[in-house]
């Protein structure tokens, strides 16, 4: 039996490819598969400084896991899974683990494209960012303007973004195709969400939350692939909006509730784990089905949260810049989810914790307009640094269950960041670079300083070299509303 709370093996990583490292399977340690990490020498050194590799080894012990537990190049220490961890379990009886998805279910990003060059809006940038910060509640515990009745909340949970568009006119019907799973994940079941979770979520729709969540105004500053950029509707100097937030307190409570349920149930299924936070049961079990229904519903709530924020942003753009300034939804992608996906003959439950999908040009799960080019893969940098849009490859299915990193990835704790960076100095530095910043406190600004993150350029290069996705454009920030 595995011992709770102990890392079972000392991580020894062996290079097996230009950007791939492996800890081989060790049966005596309970590993069912090897662990693999996508990284170059520098990133693997950074990743090895915290406990994330040990956490990834713990993931290899999940019942039903196939091929490998995978770490993305932005991987860092989390709880249960590392952040940037990916694992597929073979259905019907492979497990689902709420700790493999995390508390912020479907924390994700949404990219909106204007048809405007930055020079046209530069004189109004300050007003634009200011109005966005007023229209979109940000910061911990802030509640939104879109208080929901229980019927509406159930509609959001069960039917996702199509419900908001149809019943409340929030956003456009054309948006739906450009949201992962159409903004409504099959299997969502509001009846599996506790009253407590609904209470936490009922006034939080349309809010950013705190931590690393943000709303950014960005500009296309480099195009790497002209053809793909054209097909995705990008041009140099184009103003874009990137929104990063998730399912707020509702999602947090869903995870809390179901970790508790599975922690108590795992023993009945003969499941013993090295970390209790990996609590899991077979997806086919009553507990597994209940969590899956609740998790999908919470994911719908997160899609709707970003839909409401995008709607508010559109209103602000029209009010400040005039009617012709519209914002087109490029793509909305989830970070923290588990999804049923087919790879070859196998139906898997693919857990992505701080990781996104990166489906290739042949996938029938991506918008028709993007067939032949690939799913947009959105990789935000740290605050004040570049973000990237890539497109997934067909090879990514074999490489990483079509999974990609979700950002630069933290390299430093919040405390360490605050000791090295003074918030007011950082604010001035960002402003001196022409970046308009709105943040509740200088302290919270310092916690998200670029120095606290890995080098996003290096992370994105590894993604491309590993064959997971290829670069299309780079964006630089000009306005930041920090959550």
């Amino acid at each position, binding site marked *: 039996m595995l011992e709770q709370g102990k890392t079972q093996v000392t991580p020894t990583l062996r290079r097996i490819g230009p950007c791939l490292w492996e800890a081989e399977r060790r049966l005596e340690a309970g590993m069912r598969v090897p662990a693999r990490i996508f990284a170059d020498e520098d990133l693997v050194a950074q990743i090895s400084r915290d406990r994330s590799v040990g956490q990834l080894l713990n993931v290899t012990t999940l019942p039903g896991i196939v091929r490998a537990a995978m770490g993305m190049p932005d991987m860092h220490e989390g709880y*249960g899974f590392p952040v940037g961890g990916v694992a597929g379990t073979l259905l019907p009886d492979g497990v689902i683990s709420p700790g493999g998805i995390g508390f*912020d279910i479907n924390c994700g990003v949404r990219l909106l494209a204007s048809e405007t060059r930055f020079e046209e809006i530069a004189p109004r940038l300050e007003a634009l960012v200011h109005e966005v910060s007023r229209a979109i509640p940000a910061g911990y*515990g802030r509640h939104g303007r879109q208080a929901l009745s229980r019927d509406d909340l159930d509609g959001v949970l069960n039917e996702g973004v199509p419900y908001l568009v149809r019943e409340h006119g929030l956003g456009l019907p054309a948006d739906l195709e450009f949201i992962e799973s159409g903004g409504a994940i099959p299997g969502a079941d509001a009846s599996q969400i506790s009253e407590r979770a609904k209470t936490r979520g009922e006034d939080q729709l349309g809010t950013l939350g705190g931590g690393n969540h943000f709303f950014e105004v960005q500009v296309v500053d480099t195009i790497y692939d002209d053809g793909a950029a054209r097909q995705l509707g990008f041009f140099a100097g184009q103003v874009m909006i990137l929104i990063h937030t998730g399912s707020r307190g509702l999602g947090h409570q869903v995870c809390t509730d179901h970790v508790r349920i599975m922690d108590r149930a795992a023993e009945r299924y003969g499941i013993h784990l090295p970390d209790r936070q990996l609590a899991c049961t077979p997806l086919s079990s009553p507990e597994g089905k209940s969590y899956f229904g609740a998790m999908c519903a919470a994911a719908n709530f997160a899609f709707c949260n970003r839909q409401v924020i995008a709607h508010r942003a559109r209103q602000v753009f029209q009010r400040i810049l005039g009617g012709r300034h519209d914002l087109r939804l490029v793509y909305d992608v989830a970070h923290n989810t588990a999804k049923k996906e087919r790879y070859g003959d196998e139906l898997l439950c693919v857990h992505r914790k701080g990781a996104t999908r990166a489906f290739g040009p042949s996938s029938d799960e991506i918008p028709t307009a993007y067939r032949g080019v690939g799913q947009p893969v959105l990789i935000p940098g740290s605050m004040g640094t570049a973000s990237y849009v890539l497109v997934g490859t067909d090879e990514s299915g074999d490489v990483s269950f079509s999974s990609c990193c979700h950002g630069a990835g933290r390299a430093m704790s919040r405390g360490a960041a605050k000791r090295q960076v003074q918030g007011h100095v950082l604010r001035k530095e960002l402003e001196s670079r022409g970046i308009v910043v709105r943040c509740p406190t200088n302290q919270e600004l310092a916690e998200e300083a670029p120095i606290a993150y890995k080098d996003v350029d290096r992370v994105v290069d590894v993604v491309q070299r590993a064959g997971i996705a290829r670069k299309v454009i780079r964006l630089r920030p000009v306005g930041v509303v920090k959550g």
Partner: protein
Amino acid sequence: MAQSYTGSGPTARHEIAEHTGELAIRLEARSVVALYAEAGLALTEAMGQTPASTSDWQERVALEAPDRDALLVDWLNELVFLAEARKVAFTALEIERISERQLEATVRGAHVERPRNLVKAATFHGLCIAERDGIWSATVVLDV
């Protein structure tokens, strides 16, 4: 924050510990009840709540869990829920009864206009309540 608890534990302490992506609270106390009370205090600090002195809200808490570690996680997650759902800053956590698997407490607080709660949840990750030479200790990773 005012803090009281039954039991004989005269001292307890905590610190907010470093974690790459999250936060951890490290606890030490001379009794189990003091450990749990100190955990609530540490959580309140990690939440970044605005201190309040007078209470205008209180709620009874009764929890049951399979073991001591799970009871501590449940206790902290109960406080996270109450802070966010009731929109309060805590003023007093009174643990009235505790056993290995059960906890009863009264939580008092003050309603606040903009409640701050940096903590999403408490986790089991690496948690192991231990006793050595009369000192109880635990480290809890919080998702923030």
